[in-house]
């Protein structure tokens, strides 16, 4: 019988309807046997990847990585979390305001932020640095998640717009703080992020999210944000 390649594939995967019959044919027909051997060798290339065991503690590590994002689809969670995050945000404002003052430029934070900032003046500089790093890391994490969602085809403009709006104001703040602090790489990444956030924050109902996706891909933005975030991790 003339056997098709599809039948040989089914036989290879143990799904042929009459495997015994085909096996007898393979034994008796050298040409068919050669065809089957070629198929088998070619498919064996798929088995070339040796899968090792993951590093110990994968489950706990994965949960730790996943859990901060499980409730973050509301705009509030895009902000730095906890008092440390708020303190860090305020510190960033403080840094910006202070640098603005030195540079002769008037930067007026919102009253509530400046009020918090005033209470933080007592913090030693090293502590301010740490909270700023923590807040920036939070911001980059949130940004990364938004970019990932856009890259993967976000379901609706509403969520993304609210999220982007919140991130945008924080992004401006951190970009200016980074510029003033001489952190040029971080400032450059945040500067690249800003137009994407602006576009989303201002997007109408009819906005095509694929435009954001293209923009992210063209600028390799997700990768840059990841690198900036990882560099922060190394610093801490």
């Amino acid at each position, binding site marked *: 019988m003339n056997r098709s390649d599809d039948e040989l594939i089914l036989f290879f995967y143990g799904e042929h309807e009459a495997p015994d019959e085909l096996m007898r044919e393979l034994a008796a027909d050298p040409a068919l046997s050669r065809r089957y051997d070629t198929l088998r060798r070619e498919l064996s*290339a*798929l088995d070339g990847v040796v899968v*090792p065991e993951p590093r110990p503690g*994968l489950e706990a590590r*994965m949960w730790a990585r996943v859990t901060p994002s499980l409730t973050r*689809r509301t705009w509030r969670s895009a902000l730095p979390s906890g008092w440390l995050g708020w303190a860090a945000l305020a510190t960033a404002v403080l840094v910006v305001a202070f640098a603005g003052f030195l540079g002769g430029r008037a930067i007026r934070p919102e009253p509530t932020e400046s009020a918090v900032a005033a209470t933080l003046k007592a913090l030693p500089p090293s502590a301010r640095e740490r909270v700023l790093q923590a807040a920036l890391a939070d911001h980059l994490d949130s940004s990364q998640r938004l970019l990932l969602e856009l890259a*993967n085809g976000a379901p609706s403009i509403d969520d993304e717009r609210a999220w982007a709006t919140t991130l945008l104001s924080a992004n401006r703040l951190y970009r200016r703080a980074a510029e003033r602090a001489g952190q040029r790489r971080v400032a450059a990444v945040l500067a690249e992020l800003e137009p994407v956030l602006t576009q989303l924050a201002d997007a109408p109902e009819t906005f095509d999210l694929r435009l954001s996706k293209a923009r992210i891909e063209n600028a390799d933005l*997700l990768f840059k944000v990841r690198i900036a975030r990882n560099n922060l991790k190394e610093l801490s």
Partner: protein
Amino acid sequence: MEAAELDGVRRARQGDAEAFRGIVATYSRPLWRAAFRVLGDAEAAEDAVQDAFLRAWRALDRFDERAELSTWLYRIAINAAIDHRRERTRREALAGPLPEDFDGQVTLKSTAADPHRQAFWREMVDRAQDAISELPEAERTAILLRHYEGRSIAEIAGVLGGGESSAKQAVFRAVRKLRLVLGPLMETSRHESV
């Protein structure tokens, strides 16, 4: 799907993070292996699995309770891994020049027998991974489920949402395309070793 697992899915759908934690604990390892097969890199596989769980969390409402949670998650993880692989490939293409001796052809440098075979298999594996990444989603899912997970055609049909016949065709098409890529490499190797 087992009753306990179904209960976990339902509670996670309601926003119960602890229930989702159970799902993460159960499936981190198998999904990591699946992602590793696509990416060949342990850290990248973790990134992909993280993305997969986040996608799954957001898409839980769309999960059909008649389906197997494992195959649904597996499919999401494979797609996440493919996305990571594409991103990496694009990044590498932008980042570095091609080797000086690259002429668009497969070159297998034969020094000693063993390194030659190793280089050959490395090339085969790379090509296979690239080829799988380039397959349309249904074919990619079909071949990964069939070849690596040992899922039956009937189970693949359940994941793809079509009948067994279309699942079978997806496997056939995937194998044909992979052979088109891998076959010439095999030929090259055969001629070199003659």
